[in-house]
Structures are given as structure tokens and as C-alpha cells.
């Protein structure tokens, strides 16, 4: 993806701390019989210490793939390309042994289904012992215990339950244990992949609160993957909107929610049902098959403001005055009208295709 302005200059200007993680043009393609699934296809973003980046988008847009790709936790037969710069080391192409050493003390991952993520035969204490013994060899038994109890306490798990087995806890407690287990090693960067989707409303709010407090109390950089735009608004500093393997818009969460630029972001926000919903709105069609994604802008078959040129030419990413970066021809042309030539003759005419999308195109 072409970018009209170098991302690092924007960061330098604001005087923000160095990013913990800088992802450049990352691609994660799954090998299948039908051909490669381009689940993540050229993605660039950064996260700074203590910052929470929300990652949103419809199902199948590649959010989980991106989260795992960064940690190198992809299944066999997956192609990884690009740069994942973590504190100066490129994680792409790092040896499995080296990656294993980083996972835990530097890179953490919190999963969606807390019920099945703990080994049913091991006590909670054994999980913590294992993690700490693997990564912090210098600690004494007593120190390990204190560290573990500290982390659990922070998540509201009483020390009297330290030697219990996973099945003795409810879903919400297990998710808090999983978070404690990730945080006990004090990683610099954590991916939380829909950590609350399987939980009840009130427990979800508790976990969101914990995650929101995280950035106040630790320097952990967090990527929070979610379907729920409300969670992003409440717990994230910045947001990245993904569509079909691309990040189509990213920037300050308040700014993006208050003033969405990319047509997909706008549609996504409009179609979300919230307490203030008074009418139903939805995006026609469904996200594309990532083996054969649409040419040009991947959103063009569903975009209400698509232009003819969108179907053939991929939109460049532009950085707006607000710091928001977005990849849509409308913003690109506004920023630099000369780009219009690329769209060619009649390239700016409205594309009529959207009106014809029916339920049949959902599959």
C-alpha cells in the first residue's frame, strides 16, 4: 500500500515515546487447497508503551490473524512477510526458539474462550509456577508465589483460591486468571483477542474496566481485538478499522468515532445497534472471499459512495490533519487532487453496483 507521508515523521512531531511495536506492510497468508487466503495483506501500524489500540471489523476481516501473526503463532503452512519491529528486533523470520523466549515476558496473548484455555489437570498455582520458572529463572519459590498472588490480586482473584483447579472457577474468573497469567511476566506488548465475547454483560464490563486500568497502571501496550465498537470507545486510545485484510482507517479513537472518514468506518458505526439506536441500518452484502479479493478498493462492491475508479485502483493511504490515516479515494483526492488522473477518464463517476446487492451476495 502506498503511503503519501512517512508514518514516523508524524510520530516524531508529536513527541510521543518510541513505539514498542512497529508493524510495516505485514502479510499473513494461509495456504489452502484453493490458493492462499490473504487474511492480512499489507498492514502497517504502531503501538506505544501504555497505549491501547482497538482493532475492529466484521468477522473474517483478519483481526485474529493479525494478532497471532505478530506473535508468530500461525499454523503450519502460513506465509509471513513484512516487518514486525519489536524493540528493534524483527519478529518476522525469527527462529521458533527465539520467539518462544519472547512470548510471555515480552509478548502476551489473551484469548476469547477462557473456559478451555487453562490446562484442566493443572492447578492455577502450577500454571503460574510454570510461566515464572520458564522465563524468570532467578526467582525463588517464595518470590514466584508472591508475584503470582500479586497478579491475581490485581485481577480480583483472592489468594485463598491459589491452589484450586480451573474447573472450580466461573468463566469471568477464568478470564481474569488468564489476564493475570499474561501480566505476571510483565510483557511490553499484549494482544487480547475478543477477551469478553463469551462473557456476561456485567462481567464483560468488569474485564473492560480492568483492561482500561491497565494502561494507567502499567506501561503495557495493548492491541484489543473486538467486534464491539462500544468497547473500543471505552477502553482504547486509538482504533484501527480492518476490512478484508487491510487497515482502512486508524487514528485517535475519539476522533474516529466522532468523525469517521472511511466509508466502511461510517457504515460500521451506523449499523451497530446501541442504546441510542432508533432505526436499523446495515451494510449490504458481506466481506469478500480472501482467496480472490475484489480488485481496486476491496470495499467497492459494498461501498455506498464508490466511484468507477475504485473498482480498479487501490486507494492510497493518506494522513489527515487530525492524525487519522485512511485509505479511500475520496480523502486521497481531497488531499491531493492530482491523484485523480490515476483514476482515469470517468473514474469519479458513481459506481451503481451497490444498489443491486441482495441477500444472495452474502455467502
Amino acid at each position: 500500500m502506498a503511503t503519501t507521508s512517512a508514518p514516523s515523521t508524524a510520530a516524531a512531531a508529536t513527541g510521543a515515546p518510541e513505539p514498542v511495536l512497529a508493524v510495516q506492510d505485514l502479510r499473513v497468508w494461509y495456504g489452502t487447497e484453493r490458493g492462499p487466503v490473504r487474511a492480512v495483506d499489507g498492514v502497517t501500524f504502531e503501538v506505544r508503551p501504555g497505549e491501547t489500540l482497538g482493532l475492529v471489523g466484521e468477522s473474517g476481516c483478519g483481526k485474529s490473524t493479525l494478532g497471532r501473526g505478530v506473535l508468530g503463532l500461525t499454523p503450519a503452512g502460513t506465509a509471513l512477510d513484512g516487518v514486525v519491529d519489536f524493540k528493534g528486533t524483527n519478529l518476522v523470520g525469527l527462529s521458533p526458539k527465539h520467539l518462544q523466549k519472547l512470548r510471555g515476558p515480552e509478548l502476551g496473548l489473551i484469548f476469547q474462550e477462557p473456559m478451555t484455555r487453562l490446562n484442566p489437570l493443572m492447578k492455577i498455582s502450577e500454571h503460574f509456577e510454570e510461566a515464572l520458572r520458564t522465563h524468570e529463572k532467578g526467582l525463588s519459590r517464595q518470590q514466584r508465589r508472591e508475584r503470582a498472588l500479586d497478579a491475581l490480586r490485581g485481577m480480583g482473584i483472592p489468594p485463598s483460591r491459589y491452589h484450586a483447579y480451573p474447573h472450580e472457577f466461573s468463566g469471568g474468573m477464568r478470564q481474569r486468571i488468564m489476564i493475570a497469567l499474561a501480566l505476571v511476566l510483565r510483557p511490553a506488548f499484549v494482544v487480547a483477542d475478543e477477551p469478553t465475547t463469551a462473557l456476561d454483560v456485567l462481567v464483560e464490563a468488569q474485564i473492560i474496566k480492568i483492561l482500561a486500568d491497565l494502561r494507567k497502571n502499567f506501561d503495557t501496550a495493548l492491541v484489543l481485538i473486538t467486534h464491539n465498537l462500544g468497547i473500543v470507545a471505552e477502553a482504547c486510545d486509538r482504533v484501527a478499522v480492518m476490512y478484508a485484510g487491510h487497515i482502512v482507517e486508524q487514528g485517535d479513537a475519539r476522533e474516529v468515532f466522532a468523525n469517521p472518514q472511511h466509508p466502511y468506518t461510517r457504515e460500521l458505526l451506523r449499523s451497530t445497534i446501541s442504546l441510542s439506536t432508533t432505526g436499523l441500518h446495515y451494510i449490504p452484502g458481506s466481506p469478500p472471499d480472501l482467496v480472490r479479493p475484489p480488485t481496486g478498493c476491496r470495499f467497492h462492491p459494498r461501498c455506498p459512495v464508490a466511484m468507477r475508479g475504485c473498482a480498479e485502483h487501490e486507494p492510497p493511504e493518506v494522513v489527515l490533519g487530525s492524525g487519522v490515516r485512511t485509505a479511500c479515494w475520496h480523502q486521497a483526492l481531497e488531499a491531493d487532487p492530482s491523484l485523480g488522473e490515476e483514476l482515469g477518464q470517468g473514474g469519479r463517476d458513481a459506481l451503481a453496483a451497490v444498489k443491486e446487492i441482495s441477500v444472495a451476495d452474502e455467502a
Partner: protein
Amino acid sequence: MSKQSGGLGRYVAQRLLLAVPMVLILLTLVFLLMRVAPGDPVSAAAGGKLGPEQLAEKRRIAGLDKPLFEQYLDYLGDVVTLDFGTTFVDHRKVSDIIIENGGATLSLTLGALFVAVLIGLPIGLFSGRYRDSAFDVTARIFGITTYAAPVFFTGLLAQLAFSGTWLPTSDQADPLTSLNIESVTHIYVLDCLIAGDWNAVEDGLKHLILPSITLGLLIVGVFIRMIRINVIQSLHGDYIEAARARGVRERRVVTQHAFRNALVPVITVLGLQVALLLGGAVLTEKTFNWPGVGSTLITYINQRDYIAVQGIVTVFALVVVLISMLIDFVNALIDPRVRY
């Protein structure tokens, strides 16, 4: 936690309660099967040597003249008092047969179990871990072959292959060596140890090898399959991925997380294998002229000694129930989820 140990106690109590109807059903089956067997057991056992009066007398002693239901109650009563009757043909007490020949059967089944675990565990773990590798494919073919091959066929093959070599192909011991070994425990190798006769120990172990392998191979196929499938499954487990995400070393992920969890269901299956193992033991003992309960059973079946057969089969049934119960307890000890 005290709560857990209470749970375990309760679980054991539950399991014991459950065993009662199970034993009752099994005993009833044994009883009924014995009655539907063709021919008159008493006259057959006597081989036509007795007159009608003597036959009737024999029948009375065996309680066969009573109504069926009364016989059934007698039978249950005998089982409760562990009195399984006295054989027709050689007037041995069935309980003596069990004690005297049981040792040989026990050493054979333990030997077989040892072989099965020794071969099956590493092969199963390995082929599950390296799924679809050349090793895995070979292991699967091996498993299917051993499972499909009848015991006497494997046994005969082993005998053919090793006859005349240093490996004995029949009997429990060399008659000369065993001459001055006193039967204390009725487990031959143990008795040799007690006697302090090292030559006899070596001889006894050598005699154990082929029968154990023959019987062990019978269950090793099922064993490999079970372990392999469970390892594959648990390697895809969510907690495995989570452990990797925590940077747990791959070797530990495989051994501590995948293998341990894979073995829990295998232990349950092991309990079910005991029935197969006992059935196989009967044939193996016959093939290798092994002086266990199984070969004794076949002798009595041929002589149509129905008291003996009923007694021995009853004991086999009780053993199967007992072992499956023990296995469940072991399972409960290992897996905290079973207990509540």
C-alpha cells in the same frame, strides 16, 4: 483443599454403589449362560460311567434338582461367601484352582500389560506427536495388524520362529529347574526369588517372554490407536495454544500439557481392555501350555465340568468389575474434574 478430598470420598462411594448392580447383572448373565448350554452337565461330566441313581445323587449334591430360581439364589449366596463349589471331574475346590493357577495367569497378564505399555506408549505418543509422518503410518499399520491377528496365530508364529533357540516356547518353567521350588505365592518367579534360586528366576522370566509378547500384542493395537488419537486431539487443545502463547518450551508443552491430558482417557480404556486381556489369556495359555486359570478353564470346558466353568467364569467377571473400578479411582485421582 478439604472440599476436594470430600469430593473424592463421595466419588468412591458412588462408584462402589454403581458396582453392585453391575456385578449382579454379570452374575445373572453367567448363571443363565451356564443353564442354556446344551446337554446335561452332570451326565456329560460323568462320561456315562454312572448309573441313573448315582447321577441323581450327584445332581442333588450339585443342587441341580432344585427350581431354577432357588439355584440362582444358591449361586448368589455362594458368590457372596466366595465359595464357588467343587469340580465334578477332579474334586478340586474352585477357589483352590484360582489360588494355585491364578498366579500363573497373573504373571502372564502383568507381563502382557508390561509389553503393551512398553511398546504401545512410546509408539502411540510418537505417532500422535508426529502425525502422518512415515513413522506414524508404519505404527498404524503395525497396530491394525497386531489387533487383527488372532492370538493362537501370533502364538504359533512365535513358537515356530523361536523353537530350538534359547527362548522357551512352552510351559512356565523348565521341569528340572522347577523341581525344588516350593509354591508359596503361586507366582512362579516370586517363588524362585523366595527360594533364592537365581537360575530358576532367569528360567522363569525367559519362559514369560513369548507368551507375554503374544498376549501383549493383542491389546497393543488398541492402545496405540487410543493414545495416538488422544495426543492429536490434545495437541489441538485450546490450552496448548495458550501455553505456547505464554512461551512454555515446546518440549514441556508436548509432555506436560499434551501427553498428560491425552493419557487420561487412555486409562479408562485400559480398564475396558482387561476383559479382552483375560479372554486372550485363555487362548495364550492354551497355546503355550501355560498352567494358568485360562488353560485350566479350557480343560474343564472340554470335560463339560460345569461347576468348574461357572466358578472360573464368575471369578473372571468379578475381576473385570474390580479392575474397572480401580481404574476409575485412579482416574479420579489424576483428573480433578471427575471428582465433583
